[in-house]
């Protein structure tokens, strides 16, 4: 075994200047590719009503059509049709839309509440122990358990899933926001602000919030992939999005009944989820590496 570890390690810690982080990000080819993939998928999902070739909800008589590259494939239905004869490509576009929406809303809502808690607890040291204890308690409920509980109470649907996933995002983002905000609070301009008699409110919103927000958002966005996976899993189990809406996890679960004759019905949406989450994870890891080389894994 040859080991060439510790010496090069120290030299690796040359962080690029913060302003150029996105340039550094794009220099990493895998990350650039992941980011472009993610953005194109998001764009396609956004434009779903314009670019979907067929109605995603209307069944036809041509059921279980294979995709165009398979035998008996047909250019009318590029990715084939599902068990009810619905065009899979159109459903994929609409499904991606709902899957992404669930993820974005959950992370957005949870991160907003969590960051505010974290910032407040760094700003007002008095409430810090309480907020952190609260975060500890909330961390004890894994997202999937919250999801199961809320769906059990309110019945299956996208809304309880979004609420559960938001709640699950709160404690993590509170901790992240707190640690970032504590760093900001030690800066001289905060002290200077206090010295010239700025109100707490100005100090908080103009100086603390504005200087922490981008870092918080980036770190929280690392959760996006995981949240998408849990949301899709809940929909797969029949606990999330309800038919007739299209959602990727639900589409995969509907395809289970046709696994013997038409495995593509389940596999295509599954691959779509994989690509989205993979792209999100690679992008997130790369951003973190660029911003904070100490966290490089």
């Amino acid at each position, binding site marked *: *075994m*040859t*080991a*060439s*570890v*510790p010496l*090069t*390690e120290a030299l690796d810690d040359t962080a690029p200047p913060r302003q150029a982080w996105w340039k550094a990000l794009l220099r990493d080819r895998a990350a650039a590719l992941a980011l472009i993939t993610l953005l194109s998928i998001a764009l396609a999902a956004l434009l779903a009503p314009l670019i979907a070739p067929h109605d995603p909800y209307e069944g036809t008589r041509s059921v279980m059509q294979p995709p165009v590259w398979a035998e008996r494939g047909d250019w009318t239905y590029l990715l084939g049709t599902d068990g009810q004869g619905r065009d899979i490509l159109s459903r994929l576009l609409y499904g991606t839309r709902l899957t992404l929406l669930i993820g974005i809303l959950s992370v957005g809502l949870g991160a907003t509440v969590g960051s505010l808690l974290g910032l407040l607890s760094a700003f007002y040291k008095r409430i810090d122990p309480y907020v952190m204890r609260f975060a*500890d*308690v909330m961390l*004890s*409920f*894994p*997202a*999937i*358990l919250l999801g*199961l*509980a809320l*769906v*059990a*109470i*309110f*019945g*299956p649907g996208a809304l309880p899933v979004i609420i559960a996933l938001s709640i699950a995002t709160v404690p993590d983002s509170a901790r992240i926001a707190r640690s970032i905000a504590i760093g900001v609070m030690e800066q001289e301009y905060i002290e200077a602000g206090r010295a010239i008699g700025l109100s707490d409110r100005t100090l908080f919103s103009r100086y603390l919030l504005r200087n922490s927000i981008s870092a918080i958002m980036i770190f929280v966005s690392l959760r996006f*992939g*995981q949240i998408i*996976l*849990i949301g*899709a*899993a809940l929909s*797969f*189990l*029949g*606990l999330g999005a309800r038919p007739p809406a299209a959602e990727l*996890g639900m589409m*995969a*679960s509907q395809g*289970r009944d046709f*696994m*013997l004759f038409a*495995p593509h019905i*389940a*596999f295509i949406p*599954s*691959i779509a*989820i*994989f690509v989205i*989450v*993979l792209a*999100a*994870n*690679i992008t997130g*890891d790369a951003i973190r590496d660029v911003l904070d080389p100490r966290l490089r*894994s």
Partner: protein
Amino acid sequence: MLDTLAKRLLQSIPVLIGVLVLGFLLVQLSPGDPARVFAGAMAPPEVVEQIREKMGLDRSLWTQFWGYVERVMHGDLGRSFISNKTVTSELLAAIVPTMELMIACLIWSIPLGIGMGTLAAVWRGSLVDRAVMAFSVAGVSLPIFFICLLLIQWFGVKWQLFPFIGRGGPLWTVEGLRHIALPALSLGLIFIGPVARMTRSSVLEVLRLDHVRTARSKGLNESQVILRHGLRNALIPVVTLVGLQAGYLLGGAVVTETVFSYPGIGRLSVGAILSADYPLAQGCILVLALAFIIINMIVDILYAILDPRVQKR
């Protein structure tokens, strides 16, 4: 040692209360009238009223909550709406299969993940390192149901190597092992990634430390340095990872059990929720939350044992 234990027990009290409130809410907030559901749609109103009284549904929320807590403490979680068996018996029957699945998953994925992570750290930047990292990113990005479906398609349908429906019996029987193979493989595949990743960064961290340099300079060979002085210390954070990832594993188990019709707690919960069987759903969530608390507690205690520095903090 006892200190850590006591602190952990105290910390879990609010969580326990939260879980109990959640379980209680589940019975309270659920749409539909439990007495009506219990009596059946055709029952005359008098009978429904009688059942309501018998179930204590006409008393104040507070009294009902205390009644609920008291019953839970006595292990009485009510009866399933659907099967009419006691929730406790349904849960007990499902716990063993789930534990078997967890064991069958962890027993191969943790050693493999640790091995992969160590190799990646030792040959940092090499092809092996990149392959391990790519595998682990792919692993945490794959929806677990996709893995399950792929394994069923290949190992179950195409090559007919393993059965993919239900449980064949206890883990020590041949049929039991054959049935658990695919579920354990699916669940393990999503767990290797996080373990390998954590091991890698932890080993990298430890290999930089002074005692490793001392070990090297006193002339130990490289594998001794890594195994004795590196890996041993690096495994401490990996232990906590298993605790931190318990929720992740739990989510995976819920999906895996459902796809493979494996009769564990995960499938039981999903079934109960989908059929609006509130007593059973409440029981499942209670048990899952309790399991989660216990796992985290065990991990914390293990951590304190493995790393005496933790106690001093």
